[in-house]
C-alpha cells in the first residue's frame, strides 16, 4: 500500500498536551500533540464505550478517555493498565510545521467497511 499524505493543518493548530479532530464522513480521527511536540493520530473512539478520545487529558504519550478513564497509548492505540482493547492508529508526520495524515489507511479502512 503506498502512502498518500494529506495536509490537515498546522502543528500550532493543535494545543500542546491536547488534541483536535479530523472529521471524515465515516467518523472522526483524533490528532494528538504531546508536550514535546510529537504528533499521533487515533480513531476518535475509545475501545471501551466509544468515548471521544480527542476530549481526554493527554499525558506523556497517552490519553485518558473522558467517559470512564481508560488510558490509551498514543504510540500503539492499545489500552494500558488492566484494560484490554485497541483503537486504530493512523500514520502522521510533521513537515515544515504542517501536519500530514496518511489517508491511504482511510481508503483501506473504507474498503474494509465496504
Amino acid at each position, binding site marked *: *500500500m503506498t502512502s498518500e499524505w*494529506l495536509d*490537515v*493543518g498546522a502543528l500550532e*493548530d*493543535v*494545543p*500542546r*498536551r*491536547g488534541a*483536535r*479532530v*479530523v*472529521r*471524515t*464522513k465515516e467518523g*472522526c480521527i483524533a*490528532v494528538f500533540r*504531546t*508536550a*514535546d511536540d510529537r504528533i499521533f493520530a487515533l480513531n476518535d473512539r475509545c475501545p471501551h*464505550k*466509544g*468515548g*471521544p478520545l480527542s*476530549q*481526554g*487529558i*493527554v*499525558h*506523556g504519550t497517552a490519553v*485518558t478517555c*473522558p*467517559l470512564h*478513564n481508560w*488510558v490509551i497509548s498514543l504510540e500503539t492505540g492499545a489500552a494500558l493498565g488492566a484494560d484490554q482493547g485497541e483503537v486504530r492508529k493512523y500514520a502522521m508526520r510533521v513537515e515544515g510545521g504542517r*501536519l500530514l495524515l496518511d*489517508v*491511504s489507511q*482511510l*481508503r*483501506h479502512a*473504507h*474498503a474494509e467497511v*465496504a
Partner: protein
Amino acid sequence: MTRARELTAVRTDVAGPGDDAARPRLVVIGNGMAPGRALEKLIEAAPEAYDITIFNAEPRVNYDRIMLSPVLSGEKTFEEIIIHGDGWYVKHGVTLYKGHKVVAIDRARKTVTSAHGVTVGYDKLLIATGSVPVVLPIPGHTLAGVLTYRDLDDVEAMLLAAKSRGRAVVIGGGLLGLEAAVGLKEQGMDVTVVHLMPTLMERQLDQPAGHLLQQAIEARGITVLTKANTKAILGGKKVEAVELADGTRLPAELVVMAVGIRPNAELAKAAGLQVKRGIVVAPTMHTSDPEILAVGECVEIDGQVFGLVAPLYEMAGVVAAQLLGQSEAKFAPTAVATKLKVTGINLFSAGDFADGKDRDEIVLRDARRGIYKRLVLKDNRLLGIVLYGDTADSAWFFDLLRKGTDITEMRDTLIFGPSFAGEGARDPLAAVAALPDEAEICGCNGICKGRIIAAITSQGLQSLDDVRAHTKASGSCGSCTGLVEQLLRMTLGDAYNPAAVQPMCGCTHLGHDDVRRLIVAKALKCIPAVMQALEWKTSCGCAKCRPALNYYLLASWPGEYEDDSQSRFINERVHANIQKDGTYSVVPRMWGGLTSAKELRAIADVVDKFKIPTVKVTGGQRIDLLGVKKEDLPAVWADLNAAGMISGAAYGKALRTVKTCVGSEWCRFGTQDSTGLGVKIEKFMWGSWTPAKVKMAVSGCPRNCAEATCKDVGVVCVESGFDIHFAGAAGLDVKQTELLGHVATEDEAVEVIAALVQLYREQGRYLERIYKWARRVGVDVIRAQVFDDKDRRRKLYERFVYSQKFSQVDPWAERVAGKDLHEFRPLVEMPRLEAAE
C-alpha cells in the same frame, strides 16, 4: 530595633456582675508556651477559679515557638502553629493585652503597669517573661541586617531578607543556629554557619555525631566553619560582611546570631525579687515573694536554667496545681532529650555523655549508612545516649535512662535496641511494642505510651490527627510522630491507613497535603515548576494529578496563576457536561432557583433553534439542555447570554446551585427572606473554584423545604436569624449536616459561609467533598477557625473576596467572544475518499 506594636485587648465578660469581685485576680506577664500551658491546666481543672489577665509584649496570641523553624523553612504557616487563637481567650473570659510590655511591678500595692499605661491589680502574679537571645557585643552588632532568632518578628524579618536570595551568615552552630541555617537555605539563600567550637551542637552531641551532623548540613549546600571566632560585623548602615578572628571576611546581607539565650529577669529584678542568672524560684515555683510565681525560661531552680519545652511544661503543671492550692506539687527536673527539627536529619541525645573514668560506653558505627550510636553507662545503668542516623529506638533507651534500669542482663545486645533485648523477632513494630506502658512517647507534652493506646481504643481514634487532637502527643515539635504512628499501627492493625502516605497518584510519592504545602512553601507557580521541584516521576503527569495541581495552583496564587486548560477535565475545559454519546449538556444559572418569562422564552427559542432533544429540570432548581453538539455550544451560549443568563457551572468543581424555598416573601411560615439570601450568596460566590463541587441551600424555616440539611453548606432561617450548617451529603453517602453556628444577620451569614468555603479551598484535597474534609480535619477544628475566631474568619473572608476578583468572569461569554475557538471546531472536514481498489 523598634517595631510598631498592635494595641488590642480582647475582653469578654462571661462572669456576671459581682462575680469578678468575688474571684481572685491572676495576672500573667508573658504569653509564651509555659504560661499558656499553665493557664490551660488551671482552666481545665477550675474554669472559674480566677479572673485572668495576660500581658503579652508580642502583638499576637500564644503560638508554638518550637515550630518557628518549619515556618522559616516554609513547611508550615503561622496559623498552623497557633496554640490558642483569639477564640480561646474569649471563650474562657481571659483578658489579653496584646503588644503590652509590662514595665513595672508594684509589690506593695500589688499592681502591674504596661508601657501603654494600663495598670491592673493582682492577687496572684505569674511572671513568664521567657528569655532573650544573647547578642555578642562585637563591633557592628547593631547594624541593620543583624538579627537574632527568637520570635515570629525575627522569622518574618529573615523571610524578608531571604527574598533577595543573597548571602547569610549564621553565628552559632547549636540547635537554633542550624535550624535557622537550613531554613534560610530552603528560602534560597547562600548560607554559612560560623561556630566557635570544634564540632556542631557540642552541648547535645559528642564529637563523632557532631561530625556526621556537619557532613549532613554541608550536603545541603551550607558552608560550615568550626573553631571560627567572630571578631566583627562590617558595614556602613547595613551589614556587608562578617570578619573572623583569623582575618577571613565572609560577605553577607543577613547575619543571624544564634549563640544562646539567657533568662529575661530584668522586670523581676527591678521589682526587688531575688534574681541570679534567672528569677530564683522554689520547687513550688514561688519567687521570693509568696504572691508571685514564675515559670518558663526566665526561672532558675537549684542553680539550673531551662530552655527545652518538656521541663517548662512540667513547671506549668506545678504552677497550675499551686494556684489551685495544691501546695504539695513540686517541680523536679528530670533528664531531657534533644532532637533537631530539620527534615531528613535524625539525631537524638539525652543525659550526660561526657567521658569519665567510672563510665563505660557501647558504640555502634556504620559509616556508609551514616549511623552512629553511643550509650554511656555507669554502674550498669544508662547515663547518656547519642543516636545519629537511626533514632528508632530512642524512646526505649530514654525510658531505660529515666528509670535507671539495671541493664546487666541485656548488655550484650543493648546497642541493637529492644528487638534484640528479648527473643522478639525483627518486627518493625517490635521496638515500640517492647516499651512499657509508662514509657514516655511525647517528651514535649509528657504523654506516655499507655495513655495514647487507651485514647486510641476508648475513643476510636483512627489517625495521627485524631491522636494529636485527643492527647496532644506529637502535636508540639512533632519529632515523635513516627512512634505515634507505630502505636496506631500496632493498636489498629490493618485498619490503620495513614492518609499522609497515600500518594496523589503514581507520578509522585507525595500526598495531596504535602504537595499543597510545598507549592506555597517553595513558591511554585506553574505545573512544570511543581513537577520539577517535587521530582515528579513522569514527564507531564497524568489525568489524576494534573487537574489537582491546576486547582492547587489556582487556589494558592489567585490573580497570578494562569489556568492550564489542558490540565482540566473536558467538562471544565469546554464549560459543559460531556454525555455518553459525546454531545454536551448546558445548564444556565438561575439565581436561587428563580427564573422569568424572558429567560424561559430564550431557553425555549434555543431549544427550537438548535434542535436540542431533551430539556429537563435538575435537582438544583435549574433547567438542563441535553444533547447539544459541541460545535453548537458557543452559539447556544450567545443566545442565552443575550437573555442575561450565564454559565451555571454544572460541570465544575465549583459553586453549583444555591437552592431556596420561597421564604417570608410568600410562605406563611417563612421567617426570613430565604430566596433573597440564596440569591445574594449565589451572586457573591459564583465562579469560585473549589476542591470538589459545592452545593448550597437556604430554607426559610425549620420545615426546611430547600433540604438545606443535606447540602455542603445549608442555611436554615429562624426568627432570631440564621442557623448555618455544613458537611452534609446526599449522593454516594447520605449524611445530615453539622451545625456550624447561629448568626443574627444576613451579612454575617455571608461572611461565615465565605470563610468556610475559603478554608475548604485552602485545606480540601482535590475531589474531597466538604463532608469528607470535615471528617478528616474535625468539625470542631473548622468551627473554631471560621466561626469562633473572628479575626481568622475575617482574614479567610478577605482572601475569598480577593480571589473572587479574578474568578467572576462568565466563561460562556469569553468563549462567545472567541476564546479557545479550537475547542469547538474540527481541524479539518475531509471530503469522502474513494475506497481503495
